[in-house]
């Protein structure tokens, strides 16, 4: 039945080759599994490469008083207590060991005077906690993991995109994909699958995310029957570039503020004094993003609609050494010398706190055989993620997912691939070649406008309802989308499939945002501007009920007594 397709068989198939996918692959392999790793781009180009500021881990190399308990409390507080407490605990406890492991695999972090890994301050962290390599920590991490994985013997399928998960009864047993280069289809058979495909930033107009960030993994999991959790929580990073237009949204690392950068409005006022006088620029991202947005909306923005971020009071050589890519980015793309004057910055869509609902210990989704880690998974960050907690998330839960998937695969019988599912997957990929509608780029542009203007930093019921109407109108347009050219490396064709994921998950975000009638973390409702204790005890769960998107609430897992005590003590 699969004779018509190129077929590959693995115990564990990992989808996505950023930090989480690579770490999962390494671990699954170490646990005896035959591992395949599928990624949309070339190996080493995943979005992890863009991570700048560092990895949060309570190693106490700089601030001796730091330990996992403080990191746990900071994470819970940053997430407005909507976090899965057990994930927050495991993350804080295991992050230091995961960082040391990276070093033992060849990563070279910046050092302290005594030769240990140097740590820097970051928003919402009580201590200097971010292990870093200048402002290119993500590159160091992905290269280290990539080289380790390749040396250990992972089979890598580069520039290959999964379009459907294949099921045998309740279980996930395989995946249907196409090669970008040839457009040929390929079937993967696997006993367990780990999704590590990142978020959905490309559904917004102003975003720090690359083209790959189209919610593929969340959509695949949803379509396969997995629950999605707290999808309303989308992080807008406070500092993206605002000008020139081509680089709007491009990330300006939080490390600029970590190294002492100051935010001012056009009148020269240090406006964070009004919003968080204690933590100032190093407040959490949700707070700083709203503050900048408010300054601009109330007419105190810079000429290009942002705020000034200034690090030029620090010695020029120091800035170039600690923030080299920021220096070059502004110099080359905006003609601004950040050692001599301020940058103009504004909020940019950056990260998805919501995602596939997983078990804290094993990273298993609600579908047997299906696991998720990294940004594609949800729970650790609650209503708002702290900077630096993403890279540590990738390592801690990538490892856990890889281990659990390998163990599951050991005991799972081989599943059967169903030819009907494969034929359906093939048909839906080929359909656009027959259609005569518009090109996918136009629908993408309209989706970005909708999400940007109606499901942005500040939300209200009217806007969210309007957004749902728009999303409904996009569906028939997407069903008629047309393709020019052949199946050979055809970006227009690739985008049609990405659009399906983006539409689906944008709807999940909008429905969840409409339901949560309160403001918490990154979710700000103008019509419900306060925290609501009742909502603080509820998670939003999205699921696929035979083709219809269902939304329900479930109680947040209760924090056990000892940790509650800890949270109360460190207030």
């Amino acid at each position, binding site marked *: 039945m699969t004779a018509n397709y190129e077929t590959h068989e693995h115990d564990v198939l990992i989808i996505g080759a950023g930090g989480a996918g690579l770490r999962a692959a390494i671990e699954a392999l170490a646990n005896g599994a035959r591992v395949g790793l599928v990624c949309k781009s*070339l190996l080493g180009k995943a979005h992890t490469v863009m991570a700048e500021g560092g990895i949060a881990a309570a190693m106490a190399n700089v601030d001796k008083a730091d330990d996992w308990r403080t990191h746990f409390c900071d994470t819970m507080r940053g997430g407005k207590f909507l976090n899965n407490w057990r994930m927050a605990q495991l993350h804080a406890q295991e992050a230091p060991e995961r960082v040391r492991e990276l070093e033992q695999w*060849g990563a070279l972090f910046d050092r302290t005077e005594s030769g240990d890994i140097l740590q820097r301050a970051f928003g919402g962290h009580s201590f200097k906690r971010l292990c870093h390599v200048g402002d290119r920590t993500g590159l160091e991490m992905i290269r280290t993991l990539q080289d380790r994985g390749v040396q250990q013997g992972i089979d890598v399928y580069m520039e290959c995109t999964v379009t459907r998960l294949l099921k045998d009864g309740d279980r996930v047993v395989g995946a249907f994909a196409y090669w970008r280069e040839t457009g040929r289809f390929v079937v993967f058979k696997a006993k367990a699958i780990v999704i590590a495909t990142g978020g959905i930033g490309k559904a917004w107009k102003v975003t720090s995310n690359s083209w790959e960030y189209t919610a593929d993994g969340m959509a695949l999991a949803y379509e396969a029957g997995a629950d999605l959790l707290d999808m309303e929580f989308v992080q807008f990073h406070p500092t993206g570039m605002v000008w020139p237009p081509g680089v709007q949204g491009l990330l300006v690392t939080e490390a600029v503020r970590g190294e002492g950068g100051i935010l001012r409005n056009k009148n020269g006022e240090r406006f964070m004094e009004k919003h968080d006088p204690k933590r100032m620029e190093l407040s959490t991202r949700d707070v700083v993003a709203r503050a900048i947005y408010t300054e601009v909306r109330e007419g105190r923005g810079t000429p290009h609609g942002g705020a000034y971020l200034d690090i030029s009071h620090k010695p020029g050589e120091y800035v170039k050494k600690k923030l080299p890519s920021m220096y070059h980015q502004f110099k080359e793309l905006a*003609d601004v010398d950040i050692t001599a004057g301020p940058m103009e910055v504004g909020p940019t869509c950056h990260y998805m706190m919501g995602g596939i609902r997983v078990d804290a210990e094993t990273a298993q989704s609600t579908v047997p055989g299906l696991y998720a880690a990294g940004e594609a998974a949800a729970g650790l960050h609650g209503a708002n993620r702290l900077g630096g907690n993403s890279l540590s998330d990738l390592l801690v839960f990538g490892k856990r997912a890889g281990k659990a998937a390998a163990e599951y695969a050991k005991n799972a019988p081989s599943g059967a691939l169903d030819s009907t599912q494969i034929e359906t997957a093939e048909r839906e990929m080929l359909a656009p070649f027959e259609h005569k509608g518009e090109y996918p780029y*136009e629908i993408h542009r309209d989706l970005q406008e909708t999400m940007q203007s109606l499901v942005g930093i500040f939300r209200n019921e009217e806007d969210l309802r309007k957004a749902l109407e728009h999303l409904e109108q996009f569906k028939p347009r997407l069903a008629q989308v047309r393709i020019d050219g052949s199946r050979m490396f*055809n970006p227009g064709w690739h985008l049609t499939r990405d659009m399906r994921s983006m539409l689906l998950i944008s709807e999940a975000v909008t429905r969840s945002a409409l339901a949560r009638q309160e403001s918490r973390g990154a979710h700000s409702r103008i019509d419900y501007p306060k925290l609501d204790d009742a909502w603080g005890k509820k998670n939003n769960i999205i699921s696929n009920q035979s083709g219809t998107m269902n939304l329900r609430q479930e109680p947040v897992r209760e924090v056990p007594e000892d940790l509650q005590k800890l949270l109360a003590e460190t207030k």
Partner: protein
Amino acid sequence: MSTLENNAAMFDEATLRVYRGGPEGGEPVDYKVPLAPGMVVLDALHSIQAHQAPDLAVRWNCKAAKCGSCSAEVNGRPRLTCKTRMDSLPLNEPITVSPLKSFPLIKDLVTDVSWNYKVNKKIPAFTPKPGVEWKMDQRDVDRVQEFRKCIECFLCQNVCHVLRDHAKHESFGGPRFFVRVAGLEMHPLDGVSRTKLLKDEMGLGYCNITKCCTEVCPEEIRITDNAIIPLKERVVDEFYDPVMMLVRKIRGA
């Protein structure tokens, strides 16, 4: 007023002459693209995709000069298209955009770079000296961090004449992988020697230090001076030093 605003004011559109085609052949095609302030070549290519040629094949990811995906030859020079400003180019004539020449063409601006991944696989991974203490001095780390900046855009591979003109892909590693080996060899805690690999399998001797690679590196890694020459010295010390040759002979190694 910055150059950025000046140039945007002088021209409101540009012509891009983009190579279209595959391994069987192809030709440059002209596209007119409206200009915006600060626009880069990759923005112009995206504009062509969105409005004129939806199947134009281009590799890209971060659009921030951090991932090294969008390499191409712009007006004959190997560049990251995300970092090449339109207003840095002569806009009164067509801007040519062609695929990297040293790798087999797949389609339009996309080439088959899989050879690089095969070379990388040959290099023994970081292997710590037995019983090391995980302490390092920043000064020692600085030297290696320069090599670790590499974003694998493969522009250095593209201009290296050993690959570009002589197609020694089978017996030569190329500047990118000399940089990678240098990063491992000079890692303060690494305990493995890769000099034999450099000499026998990576063809380090083919490099005659013309520095073409250094000139095109978007990360400004001093590939020739800081990576290749020190590696050549290591190979010479180990294999061609007369005293050491004698010692080896006596020991029967």
